[in-house]
């Protein structure tokens, strides 16, 4: 037996051998019966020095374990089919992920369509209206009114789009007509106040409404 090899074996038994040498010697140890027997006797020497009583030192246990493990599949062979199965299942994972993403997108589109009011076609008209509105208030983008404290000319008449919840688009002209049509149920003072509020909120219609109101007052 090679003395250097045995010296390495002794050091490996004590966990005092360099890792690279351990790798090489572990391979040899697992195959070389004589080396393994020597390794086992080193263990016996240690057990005797430690005076471990009640133990049988002729090592029947190692032989019994080895005999049982003969019937066991090797660990690498055990794990190989699992790896192959994983590889086999791997192909459908991107397909499933794509399908799931498409389903989520379809549900989102259908939900958005359901949320839109009946008069507005789907297809991003609100989005296209925003760039058109921007030139109307050239100074609006520079600094917000909340920062300057002074509203830009005309800005105070603009009702910003509400981003929360579905937009209830009811033109104020229609609302005014509705109020006028049902004016018999309200007092004249309240009706006038309400109409005044509409006129100030919609300058274009204000003149016509005012004239109409004056005519009605004159008639009464």
């Amino acid at each position, binding site marked *: 037996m090679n003395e250097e090899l*045995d*010296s390495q074996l*002794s*050091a*490996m*038994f*004590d*966990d*005092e*051998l*360099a*890792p690279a040498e*351990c*790798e090489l*010697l*572990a*391979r040899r*140890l*697992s*195959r070389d019966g004589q080396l*393994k*027997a*020597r*390794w*086992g*006797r*080193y*263990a*016996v*020497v*240690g*057990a*005797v*020095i*430690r005076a*471990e009583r*009640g*133990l*049988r*030192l*002729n*090592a*029947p*246990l*190692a032989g*019994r*374990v*080895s005999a*049982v*493990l*003969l019937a*066991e599949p*090797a*660990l*690498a*062979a*055990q*794990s190989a089919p699992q790896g192959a199965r994983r590889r086999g299942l791997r192909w459908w994972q991107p397909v499933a992920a794509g399908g799931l993403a498409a389903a989520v997108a379809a549900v989102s589109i259908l939900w958005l369509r359901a949320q839109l009011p009946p008069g507005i076609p789907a297809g991003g008209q609100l989005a296209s209206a925003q760039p058109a509105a921007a030139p109307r208030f050239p100074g609006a983008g520079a600094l917000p009114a909340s920062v300057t404290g002074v509203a830009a000319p005309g800005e105070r008449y603009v009702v910003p789009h509400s981003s929360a919840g579905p937009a209830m688009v009811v033109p104020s002209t229609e609302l005014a007509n509705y109020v006028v049509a049902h004016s018999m149920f309200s007092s004249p003072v309240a009706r006038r106040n309400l109409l005044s509020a509409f006129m100030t909120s919609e300058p274009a219609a204000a003149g016509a409404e005012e004239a109409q109101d004056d005519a009605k007052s004159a008639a009464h």
Partner: protein
Amino acid sequence: MSADVSDLSLVHRVQRGDKGAFDALVLKYQHKLVKLVMRYVRNPAEAEDIAQEAFIKAYRALPQFRGDSAFYTWLYRIAINTAKNAVVSRDRSPIEYNIDASSDESYEMQGRMKDSETPEGLVLTDEIRSTVNAAIDALPEDLRTAIVLRELEGLSYEDIAAAMDCPVGTVRSRIFRAREAIDRRLREVFEGGLGRAEELG
């Protein structure tokens, strides 16, 4: 030297399908494991059975061993759990022993008597023990001190070098030469069988 390197190199070989590497781990730890199990069961034959079961469990669980702890710590944990389970199942079993279990000697004898090979095995064990002890007594002082500090006290080569005031390489050489001298006699006992040690005197 990093701890557990040699065990890990063997463990990795087992994980790659090399059963022979597991034999080396069993050979290295079988005595320690049986001794550990005997804290739970005093019957040596039963302790060996439990240790065997623990080794087989460890082999089957080895793919899950990631090296977060030392291999022997992991193995010891398996052995302790196996021993505890064995004690619980034994306590539930209806088998009753007529031997007085309160007596350590009778309890140990009960276990020994269960093993048909025990008388010869015991004699061989005694022979091995006396051979090793005789070989250690015959060692030069420096070799004997080095091997005893290593095996009995569990000191690292570096600590032994400090204790013996010599280089680590010398410690390694002394321990190896001590083992070689003991092994020379021990090999004859193992290969020659029962009675060979007495002839060697």
